[in-house]
């Protein structure tokens, strides 16, 4: 379990990092936290010629509130965000982070790295999709901002070009009347989820204004759907979760598009998604009406 040899560069500026990456002509990889990349190298499933370590670039590890968004830089560790008082502005991130790997992995793993790696079973891409986060990508020709809906393009495939770096993600902060939900089922804590859901509901005076759900571990990327009509149609019911079930079961057929593996068939994942979706939509709605997010 030793990686194949690679050239190693640790530039001091972002411009240098982009230059180094471009110079590798597609044979380089960005190293930030390394918690997804290093296992791939150790197993020699990948052997990039050059690693461009961006941990020497000052200022990339910031977590800051910028008006309506919480901006998380490329080398900000997941655990730093977990601990940051600023993270309270994006409650969904706080709900999801404890499920990202283990504590020991979050000490080094970065928020942006998880997004850039884009594992279809990962939590943070689903959070970014559900919230409509914006991803800032920088390359030789400048900086562009990619909405989460366009960023994730398939299993471990994103809009980041081979000579580009994901420099930051901006999560919209929670507004008034917004409630959130998060749930996943994994074989063990810290494993990638067999299926998981992230929900966001905005309500005003008890009426559903907007409801969005993202599923993960259920397709080759996080799958996001507007479920405002579904939630609205049952919002007044006593047992909201039960009332949502027929709708989420139907939704599961649309959303769950995975082939199943030894740990769960497609049918099992559909049932799982339907149950979790109903539970977390009901929970998010309840919290939205109680002003608890």
């Amino acid at each position, binding site marked *: *379990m*030793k*990686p*194949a*040899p*690679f*050239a*190693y*560069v*640790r*530039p*001091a500026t972002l411009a240098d990092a982009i230059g180094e990456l471009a110079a590798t002509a597609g044979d380089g990889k960005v190293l930030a936290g*390394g*918690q997804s990349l*290093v296992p*791939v190298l*150790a*197993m*020699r*499933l*990948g052997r990039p*010629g050059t690693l461009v*370590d961006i*941990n*020497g*670039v*000052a200022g990339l590890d910031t*977590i*800051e509130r910028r008006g309506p968004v919480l901006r998380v830089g490329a080398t*900000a560790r997941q*655990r730093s965000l977990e*601990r940051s008082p*600023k993270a309270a502005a994006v409650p969904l991130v706080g709900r999801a982070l404890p499920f990202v790997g*283990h*504590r*020991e*992995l979050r*000490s*080094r793993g970065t928020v942006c790295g998880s997004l850039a*790696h*884009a594992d*279809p*079973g990962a939590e943070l891409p689903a959070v970014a999709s559900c919230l409509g986060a914006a991803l800032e990508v920088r390359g030789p020709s400048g900086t562009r901002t990619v909405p989460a809906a366009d960023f994730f*393009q*398939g*299993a*471990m*495939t994103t809009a980041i070009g081979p000579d580009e770096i994901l420099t930051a993600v901006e999560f919209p902060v929670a507004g008034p009347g917004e409630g959130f939900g998060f749930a996943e089922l994994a074989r*063990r*804590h*810290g494993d990638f989820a067999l299926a998981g859901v992230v929900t966001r509901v905005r309500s005003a005076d008890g009426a559903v204004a907007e409801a969005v759900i993202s599923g993960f*571990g259920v397709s080759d990327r996080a799958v996001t759907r507007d479920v405002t009509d579904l939630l609205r149609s049952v919002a007044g019911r006593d047992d909201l979760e039960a009332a949502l079930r027929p709708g989420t079961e139907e939704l599961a057929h649309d959303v769950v*598009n*995975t*082939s*199943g*593996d*030894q*740990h*769960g068939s497609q049918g099992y994942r559909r049932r799982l998604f339907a149950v979790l979706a109903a539970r977390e939509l009901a929970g998010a709605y309840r919290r939205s009406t109680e002003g608890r997010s």
Partner: protein
Amino acid sequence: MTTTTPPTGTTGSRPADRPPQRPVRAAADELVDVSFTVNGTPVSIRVPARMHLADALRTLLGLTGTHLGCEHGVCGMCTVLIDGDAARSCLVFAVQAEGTDVVTVEGLGTRERQHPLQQAFSHHHGLQCGFCTPGFLLSSYDLLVHAEGPLDPQTLPEEMSGVICRCTGYRGILAAVSDVAEAHPEGVPEPMNCAPRTLVGRGGGMSRSALAEAPAEEVAEEAPTALTRPTGTPTITVTVTRQLTSPVEDVWAVMDDVDRLARCLPGAELTADLGGDRYRGRAKVALGPVRLAFEGLAQITGRDADDHRLALLAQGADAGGNRTAAEVGLRAVALLDGGTELRADAAVFLSGRIAQFGRALAGDVSQRLFEQFADAVDETARTGTAPEVGSGPSALAIGVQAVLAAVRRRARAARRALKGRLARRRKD
């Protein structure tokens, strides 16, 4: 540095005003100077960039208390504190430790003066063979030093799930951690054996020794020379159906032409026709950082022109010791609207390291791959020639691709030979 709340202890924490790590540029065969602090001792070593921190600690600094299990971040044996936070030292390259403050189990306490966690593990019999103990000690230290308020017994098992123990059943470990938390409500004592001292590596300072057993280039796994039908439970099974616009006869014409069929699969290439419906080929997979190239064999094991069915068996191996095998059934069914439904059933068997990346991922990728494949078949049926499918962007159905890829390679040579044979043939 707006983010990190410093741990309550000072040892091993990261000062907010630490300067950024110095720039480095090192070729693959070059050694890099790294300076950091281990258990209170400043150290400077020279390492290849690919050496992980655990190897550097064990081999160059003689700190063999840090154990290595899986070496890819799953087992937690190698857990150390980096700047006060528990981390897997196998997932951090030694070069990345530049300027950091590392604490290993040797820094926690001594035989004569054990840290309270060590005493509690001993008292509760939180170990049998002891292999996982250093990892558990540092993981639990990290948990306790950062805990806000008392531990919740309900969530404690999850909190401690980052390290695996194969002996104890965990009860002794959890009891030990709970005990220390109760005994030290104001915070667990700092590591007790951190002070400047002389560290001597096992390798006498030869910084390459840890990697001596790890060849830069491994001997290539031999591509299979004979096809055998896989047995046991498949790693993944994939069933996909796709509606095509072309009529079933045109689709079958593509399925019956191995060359054109193979070209419809992203990343695959036929390299030889071995006769007897057997082909040699290769398939490339590129998915995020994963890059694999399989060499393999494929065989058409069944062909039914009346029912428009094709059965294939394929297997391949890559240079990293990964093996894949698959049985694939393709069937085209005429639809009332004049189009065709193409159905694929694949049982994919993975072994080697890719099996650990299995999960549903390989299945999802296989599914996307098949969809691209089906669309390419449709286009080929319409236009007569295979489209340029490239090397497959997200597409790399690790298993199916290899299989079909293998088919593809041989296809070209195969085509001529096939013409003479007839459409109907059954071998199984």
